[in-house]
């Protein structure tokens, strides 16, 4: 009997090792992903749909986090209900995104990003232990598809597009770091300082990259044919791959 009580009191310990992505970084990553979508989808109608989707994702995160924190019956019911309502709001945003914008291309543009936002949130709650990285990768990947779609239909100027692309990569980096920290140290550990330094580091690299690319672009190296530009980029990729081997 004493053993049972002891075990129960241990199970209730607040500081048992629990593998969850770090909260602060997770929140920043979701916000950055939303910013990336907002940069590309700059039509007021699209922004409204994004706002609805954000409300849904916030509800989903709140419910999911509560569900992860407390598994007692009453709390679980409330938490799961909140998460499902949040998801339904997001699904309705998806529906709006599919029907509301007047142009067909604008409809296609927004969809992967909104779904990606939900997947990213699902990876950071996390919806399923052990699948955090897959969900985060898939989520930010879909957000990146929205950025690419924005580039294809030329809805926004190159500068904004560039920024959206970098913000997506930074969001992925911060989310992956949250998963890594949570996996090694658990949710009870104090990690905010390391998270902040890492996020600032990646942010600075991102900003510098945008600056550099815009600067080179601004030099207006005329006469470089499109094919030449491509060859240069492929060479860059090959070089990086070789160097990182």
């Amino acid at each position: 009997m004493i053993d049972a009580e002891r075990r129960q009191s241990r199970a209730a310990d607040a500081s048992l090792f629990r593998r969850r992505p770090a909260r602060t970084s997770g929140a920043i990553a979701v916000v950055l992903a939303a910013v990336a979508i907002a940069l590309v989808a700059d039509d007021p109608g699209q922004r409204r749909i994004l706002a609805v989707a954000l409300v849904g994702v916030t509800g989903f995160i709140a419910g999911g986090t509560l569900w992860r924190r407390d598994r007692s019956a009453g709390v679980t019911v409330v938490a799961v209900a909140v998460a499902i309502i949040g998801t339904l709001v997001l699904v309705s945003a998806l529906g709006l995104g599919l029907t509301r914008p007047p142009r067909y291309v604008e409809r296609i543009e927004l969809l992967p990003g909104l779904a990606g936002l939900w997947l990213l949130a699902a990876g950071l709650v996390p919806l399923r232990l052990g699948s955090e990285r897959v969900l985060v990768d898939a989520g930010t990947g879909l957000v990146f598809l929205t950025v690419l779609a924005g580039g294809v239909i030329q809805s926004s100027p190159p500068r904004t597009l560039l920024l959206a692309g970098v913000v997506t990569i930074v969001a992925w980096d911060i989310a992956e770091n949250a998963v890594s920290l949570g996996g090694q140290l658990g949710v009870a550990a104090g990690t905010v300082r390391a998270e902040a330094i890492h996020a600032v580091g990646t942010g600075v690299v991102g900003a510098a990259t945008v600056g550099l690319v815009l600067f080179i672009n601004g030099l207006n190296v005329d006469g470089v044919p499109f094919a030449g530009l491509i060859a240069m980029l492929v060479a860059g990729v090959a070089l990086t791959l070789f160097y990182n081997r």
Partner: protein
Amino acid sequence: MTTVRRTRRWRGVVAVVLLALAVGVVAKRPSLLLVAATGIAFAAYPAVTTPPELDVSVERRLDVDSPAVDDTVTVTTTLRNEGTEMLTDLRVVDGVPAMLSVVDGSPRVATALRPGKEATIEYAVRAERGVHRFEPTTVVGRDISGGTEVETTAATKTVIECSARIPAVPLRKLTRNRTGQLVTDRGGSGLEFHRIKAYERGDPVGRIDWRRFARSRELTTVEFREERLAEVVLCVDTRAIAYRARSPNDPHAVASAVDAAERIAESLFASGHRVGLATIGRGSCWLPAGSGPDHEDQLRARLSTHPSFSMSPPPPSETVDDEDADLDRQLSVLRERLGTVQLFLLTPLCDDGATRAARTFEAAGCAVTVVSPDVTTDATAGARLARIGRRNRLRALRSAGIPTVDWRPDDRLGTALATVERWGP
């Protein structure tokens, strides 16, 4: 020991670059090529950062060194960056003793440290019976991109001692011919009266019973129980099967056994006996019986640092194909080494191999006492079956004349050992 790992976390960015490139080419959009160019910068990012030079020292303070059972002990661990460069991503896991559970705060932290700066982790553990040594603190450093991860350990000696003393260890009769504290059934010089026998030439004059001689003119010699020194070897079962625990949050049987071995050794050393150390299972730790401060230190060091007593079970890659044959081989080697000593076999008795070991040693002339931490539960049908199996093994050992100590790690070890003394060797 320092290990350097590439995390390869930025590898996926190359795919993103290629995708942007492909879409840009197909749709003829130069702006997408710019996006691809920024991606290349991130792919190259981990290659331009250097792995951190980890030079971290650890200092640990306890608010109580020797608490009572179930008391809360606050542990304050201070980390200091002794190196010359800033550590941008430092992840630290303090080496909480395997038997203790953290009740407040977290023994883990991630932070960034400038050279010479300090960070502290504060958490509380609940004290359990025993002597608990902190294990080395694990320190993981990542460069700012997270591309390279360096892992190392930093150690500082800290001990929590919690009412661990065992009053007496029940020893069996087999002993060596050296004077000590173990009272034997043999007559000779000592403190406790044994018998009176007829005088023989050569008996010490001081032990002749002169009163009786005056009364009856009969020369008799008084004999006392001889007090001898015991030579004891503590043998811990560290086979993979012994790494069982009642629940994931409870210490496993090897942790309990190592803890018990340490306390038994402490008590035996205090009485002046000679103590040695052996294992059956992974690796083989062998320390012949001995005494003296150096030997005591060596034995303690072996218990806390020798890989045979590792607190984590052997990885699946290390498991032997034929465990029975492996055990037999180990037993025959040990039998040669042991000779005729007192042997304490510390095993959870999870399988018949453990009983076979006890019987083999007993048959080889050792005086075996089995101390068995009980890690069985009655939570599930399978667990109940394991409990019955263990009970049967205990009974089999007792009927073979081997004293056994059935010890629940939550109870006092001293009390459990005392039951054997009553029960008789």
